[in-house]
């Protein structure tokens, strides 16, 4: 890639090398006929400068904090400040989760990440029939501001940043967070954090949708607008490839479908008259980190370069911050094995290292026991320590983008970009991401990848240590798994009953009616009205219930 490299000389050397390889292979063939990355990109035996002939350093890589941001979004990256160590956590009641958060903060975690239970994520109160059996299971049960006050008790919202994995009812939970801030004396312009708020990947891969696409996009862009004016430090969306990858996509598909979702959000917000130079600064992303180390590092770099280009060239964005792809990473849940669970610590370490070498802004490391149950406190502790060891002992955080210039890394970065751009152009040709989802195009590609991976594992073509090779007889009886108290639902139901007796029900009714009226008029921003209902202890289920009546519900387009 440098003009000083003497390509003819290299080619001469290469020829000699290849002759030698041929000889070696006669005696000892390679382990496989063909080597490919986890995402099915063919891998050369060895990479050299001839693989990077088209690469232009100034144009394609540049410097950290500068366009096209391939090397990172901050000029000093981790030398200035380490990534935020943010473990996704929450289970049972607000009281129990509050205790877990305070434990994590006491262990040196630097940001919170709230997991809500499924009824909360789908806009049902704990006393709704659909909530039965699910309360407190995959996250904390939150019905009203009263629960949220307990969840953040003694946690100063002006000091921690909080990420909330909430999508369809994101406005409601953000409103609750704002109200807790108010009670702590922290005004909303001082709050920092993230709501996931990414409905498109819910339709594609994660499943916690409520409303159809159109009103869902309105709720999202209402949040963009409201936060631009009132909660300027808040990341209004976390455009997520994580779940797309967990559903089975390849690395290149993860990048492609995530950025295509991003394009759809920018277009929707532009249509509303919002300026991408402004709201674009608060778009954030969320990626997965799987095992294929080199491909993963390349993936993060490619995604950053592509988003910079999309914002600059496609949307004409000039604000630097709005061109930057800032992202959270979580290690790959689906790569964890129930067999020999301690091995997962090693997998998570590699994946976390890839995320750090890829320049992530925050990181969740999975716990070793997650293929068996919700993580125990001990295994969450080990996962967090894994990040601390990478940060403080490995040395990789002390120089920026250390793998840049590696022939294979740059080559894979280009390959991922090429493949992802191909998908994005197909989606563009179909008329955009909403249509591609409606037609099942995205889901089909993901499922095909998932199925071919499963077949590769079953044929032994892909090896998973402890699962299809190197198995041992084992017993998990001594693993101290977390058990969620089955009575969470009952306790929540009781709390709701008391709340409905105590609050000013007439006021709640009025605020809900205001939401209903506004739902019918697209020119009104729903966010202030939701805030008002929440402040008066209207429940999540009541607010989403009104919106369900007005907007209708999404029904899944089953693709198999």
């Amino acid at each position, binding site marked *: 890639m440098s003009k000083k490299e003497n390509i003819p000389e290299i080619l001469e050397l290469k020829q000699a090398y290849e002759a030698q390889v041929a000889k070696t292979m006669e005696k000892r063939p390679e382990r496989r006929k063909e080597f490919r990355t986890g995402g099915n990109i063919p891998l050369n035996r060895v990479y050299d400068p001839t693989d990077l002939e088209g690469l232009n350093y100034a144009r394609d890589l540049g410097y950290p904090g500068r366009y096209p941001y391939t090397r990172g979004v901050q000029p000093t990256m981790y030398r200035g400040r380490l990534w935020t160590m943010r473990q996704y956590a929450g289970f049972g009641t607000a009281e129990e989760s509050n205790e877990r958060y305070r434990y994590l903060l006491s262990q040196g975690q630097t940001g919170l990440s709230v997991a809500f239970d*499924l*009824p909360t*994520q*789908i806009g*049902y109160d704990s006393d709704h029939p*659909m*909530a*039965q*059996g*699910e309360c407190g*299971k*995959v996250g904390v049960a939150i019905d009203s501001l009263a629960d949220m006050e307990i969840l953040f008790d003694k946690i100063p919202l002006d000091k921690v940043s909080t990420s909330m994995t909430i999508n369809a009812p994101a406005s409601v939970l953000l409103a609750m967070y704002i109200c807790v801030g108010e009670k702590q004396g922290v005004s909303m312009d001082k709050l920092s954090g993230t709501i996931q708020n990414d409905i498109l990947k*819910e339709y594609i891969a*994660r*499943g*916690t949708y409520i409303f159809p696409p159109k009103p869902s996009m309105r709720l999202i862009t209402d949040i963009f607008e409201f936060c631009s004016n009132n909660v300027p430090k808040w990341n209004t969306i976390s455009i997520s490839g994580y779940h797309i990858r*967990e*559903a*089975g996509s390849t690395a290149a598909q993860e990048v492609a479908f995530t950025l295509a979702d991003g394009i759809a959000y920018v277009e929707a917000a532009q249509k509303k008259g919002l300026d991408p130079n402004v709201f674009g600064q608060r778009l954030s992303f969320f990626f997965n980190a799987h095992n294929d180390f080199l491909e993963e590092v390349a993936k993060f770099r490619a995604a950053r370069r592509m988003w910079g280009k999309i914002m600059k060239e496609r949307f004409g964005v000039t604000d630097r911050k709005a061109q930057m792809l800032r992202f959270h990473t979580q290690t790959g849940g*689906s790569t964890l*094995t*129930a*067999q020999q669970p301690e091995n997962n610590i090693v997998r998570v370490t590699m994946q976390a290292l890839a995320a750090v070498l890829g320049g992530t802004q925050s990181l969740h490391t999975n716990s070793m026991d*997650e*293929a*068996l*149950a*919700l993580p125990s406190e001990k295994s969450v502790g080990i996962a967090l320590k894994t990040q601390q060891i990478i940060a403080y002992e490995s040395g990789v955080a002390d120089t920026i983008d250390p793998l840049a210039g590696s022939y294979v890394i740059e080559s894979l970065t280009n390959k991922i970009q090429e493949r992802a751009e191909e998908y994005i152009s197909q989606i563009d040709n179909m008329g955009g991401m909403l249509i591609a989802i409606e037609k099942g195009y995205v889901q089909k590609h993901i*499922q095909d990848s*998932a*199925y071919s991976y*499963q077949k590769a*594992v*079953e044929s032994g073509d892909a090896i*998973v240590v402890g*699962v*299809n090779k190197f198995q041992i007889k084992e017993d*998990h*009886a001594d693993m101290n*798994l977390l058990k*969620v108290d*089955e009575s969470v639902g009952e306790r929540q139901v009781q709390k709701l009953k008391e709340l409905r007796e105590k609050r000013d029900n007439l006021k709640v009714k009025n605020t809900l009616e205001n939401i209903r009226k506004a739902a019918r008029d697209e020119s009104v921003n729903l966010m202030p009205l939701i805030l008002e209902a929440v402040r008066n202890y209207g429940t999540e289920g009541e607010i989403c219930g009104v919106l369900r009546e007005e907007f209708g519900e999404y029904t*899944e387009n*089953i693709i*198999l």
Partner: protein
Amino acid sequence: MAEKKIRVVIAKPGLDGHDRGAKVVARALRDAGMEVIYTGLRQTPEQIVDTAIQEDADAIGISILSGAHAYYFSKIIGLLKERHAEDIIVFGGGVIPDADIPALLEMGAGAIFGPGTPTTVCAEWLEKAVAEKRAKETV
């Protein structure tokens, strides 16, 4: 007599959105020659049992990764009994701790397949279980 194809309903009860496993299993069973009806997400136990009865299914495969397995298995198995359809085989998989499996089997689940199970193991088990069930029916 030509062997009747095995009919199996793959179901996602409750609010859990993790459908990778369910879809992979559905496809693998289909590739193994079975007729597969996949319910999609957010099914109530009543809907699942209705589907299985209407489709004249031999078996229901339940996929749960949300931790709500005890509730849904007991609900679905209970409803099958209520509707005199307990001959329909119930099996499942997902993130289900080992310690919880005996209770599910006790309730009447035929088998629980944990993470990492080859789909062929699941298909072979189901073929055998359905053959046994049909043998009983013809007696």
